[in-house]
């Protein structure tokens, strides 16, 4: 996977992880930072760059449950930070569709 140049030094205001989101928030996945096996597993379950997700449960000490497409995917606490996202403004069309 190609990393977009520049995100390391100066993160754009959109770059956050699932752990930074509030319950009910929607966001667009920008990249998966984890190991090969973790990112492959997430990709199979539909979590991949460009996809919109919604936090259905958590984030708490256990992890979080994301709504992706029509599915619910549970992520353990340890992998929350590997999913980099750009939060979607509530009320926008994209945010509404991710609900």
């Amino acid at each position, binding site marked *: 996977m190609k990393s977009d140049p520049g995100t390391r030094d100066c993160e754009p205001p959109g770059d956050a992880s699932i752990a930074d989101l509030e319950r009910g928030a929607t966001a667009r996945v920008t990249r998966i930072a*984890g190991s090969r096996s973790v990112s*492959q597993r997430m990709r*199979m*379950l*539909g979590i991949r760059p460009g996809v919109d997700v919604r936090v259905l449960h958590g984030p708490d000490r256990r*992890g979080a449950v994301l709504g992706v*497409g029509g599915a*619910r995917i*549970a992520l*353990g606490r340890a992998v929350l930070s590997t999913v980099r996202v750009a939060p979607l403004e509530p009320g926008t069309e994209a945010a509404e569709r991710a609900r």
Partner: protein
Amino acid sequence: MSGCHDVAPSGSGPSEAAPVVALAGNPNAGKTTLFNLLTGANQRIGNWPGVTVERRLGTARLQRTRATVVDLPGVYSLLGGGGPDQEVARDVLLDGKIDLVIDIVDASNLERHLALTSELLETGRPLLLVLNMVDEARANGIEPCAHALSAAMGVPVVPMVARRGTGRPELLAAIERALAAPSRGEAPAYPAAVERALAALSELTEVAAPARSRFQALRLLGGDEAPATRPVAHALEHWSSAALEETGEDAADLTAATRFAWAHRLATLGQRHGARRGARQRVTDAIDAVVLNAWLGVPVFLAVLYLVFVLSFSGGNILLDLFDGASAALFVNGSGNLLLRAGLPGWLVSVVAGGAGGGINLVATFIAPIAITFLLLAFLEDSGYMARAAYAMDRLMRRLGLPGNALVPMVIGFGCNVPAILGARVIEGRRDRLLTVLMQPFMSCSARLTIYMAFAAVFFRGHGGQVVFLLYVLGIAVALGTAWVLGRTAVPGTPAAFVMELPPYRLPGFRSVWLQSWQRLKVFVLRVGRVIALIGLVLFVLPGIGWVDGRLTSTDVDHSLLAQGSRALVPLFAPMGMRPGDWPAVSGLVAGAAAKEVVIGTFNGIYRRRADGTAMDAYRHPEVARRLRAAAATVPANAAGFLNGLRDPLGLTAIGSAGAAERASGADSATLRALAADFTPLSAFSYLVFVLLYVPCASTVGALRREVGWGWTAFSAAYGLAVAWGAATVIYQAGSVTLHPLSSLLWIAAVASAAAVLVTGLRRYGRRRPRRARRAAGAYT
């Protein structure tokens, strides 16, 4: 299990002529429900050769022909990932002889499910798409359009609600048409540079099947697999850079992006979005708010566990005496009477009716509780809760070095260790799976409960419940402790990250739950039944023959081969309080190594042998009808007792009354009296601890061997024996420390130093094989 291996995955075998239809799809897409809908009760369950992954084959009746239907394990991608169950599905889809693939997709989650469809189209196999759960999609405000999908993909699409049977006639007609005139559809088109690279790479792979070589090329190009040889690595580098030059993008990203873009485009075509968010989603949210709650999650899981216990044990008890009494009347007394009348000699009648018939009687006794356990587990599996339980327990399990989903097999292990080991196949990482499998033999299965019951009746009357509960807890503690120690010594590593789909809650269909548990019960009874009937036979003969005056001759029990052999072993058990007269208990342990159910059966065999005269009497006057009536009469009384059982999940009140516990254990009172003479409460408890922990039964050994190989199976058996001996010795010596303080302390110190040596050895093993350990840590997936 001879019936399992002669049917190849390709579907050759009994219905050679019938075309083979394979059901493929993501986990939770509804494959098994559809399988049941297509085949009804006309199905066979076995294992895929070489792995303990359940294989279901069935026959579907079409209008003019029949088709063999294969239910494959759920798979997310043909490119890799997942446990051995997904590997099985991939092998069949890429290499198997299949006439039609039915791809089942969840209409409420179309885009992700279509990602697998795009790969299936690339295999070039005839394909038929089932758009399942259109009702759930509608409830979510999505209107699926089967026609648009079919037109865009070039394969037939059938909308269905498999759970309710909606769309079954349409599907059967579509299968018939697809078999007559297969359509292979149109796979997503990669950029020309990628196609050239794929063609060149698949030429280099040494695989015959075209689908297999193409997917190997895709894996190479996508970076899912490292090139095996230098020429392949060379070609990969050449073609990747060629593709990068031509398209300006990385080939690895391009292949995946092409498929996902295709899935996205098709999903947009195939559904119209409505406005409302469905009520079903809100119900799921509400239930999840409780069962996934940071504080309530664990208690809710324990409550569910408790319910499974209540219903399996107490519910099973309603019918336990019926099955016991009725099978004794028919297979022991009835068959004995028939054989006597047929003019067979008395000794042969004893062997067949008392040995084999008694064995069948023992299995039949357990049918009710085991059937209920299977029913409840099938219900739980279909309901969507188990994935939540795994998530809720993940944090706790992780502290012990295990992933949360290791918990699900442990729950199953309370019923029987074999399906528990089988259930570990869903765990992805090799290290995590190995640890989970090695824990299972310590989970106290229902077979061991019979032994506790018999001993509790004699020794722990007032506190029987607590003693049995303590044994269950001890089993769990040893299982978790084993994983904890091994995970820090022999197989170091960290548990794989928790990433798991939570399927929507569904009220499981009666038909699906019933069929699933019925098939499992059938396999269980036939397999275990054969073993126990055979062992019953052997155990009835062994106590009757002995080595006297230099030759083998018939003798009384106390001079039999069994007694001689068992007496020789007694000294080994002396540190846990066994005396030379306790040889029947040792015989029980030896027989119990084959199947724990037969420990009490062995006691019975030995003592029934002494009472052979009365047994003969029973064969002469079998009173089958009266015994059957008596057996039936136990049902209402036991049903009333069930209400008590709701407060007492393990059926422990039964232990309070000697008679009830005696019935529950299947031992007769002569056996129990003999036990009382041979044990003290302390040595009895030590014996029970030993029974709980020592070697896994023969069926469990078979499952272990298939899952983790002979090496770890041998380790499991030896480790179990050592832990059992150590724990039983420590308990007995600590309990009797006032009688002989010095020797007790020496024994305890000896066990402690042996444990230290074991841990050191395991640590050294883990260090000596760093490569193996790294691979086991999950790096290879």
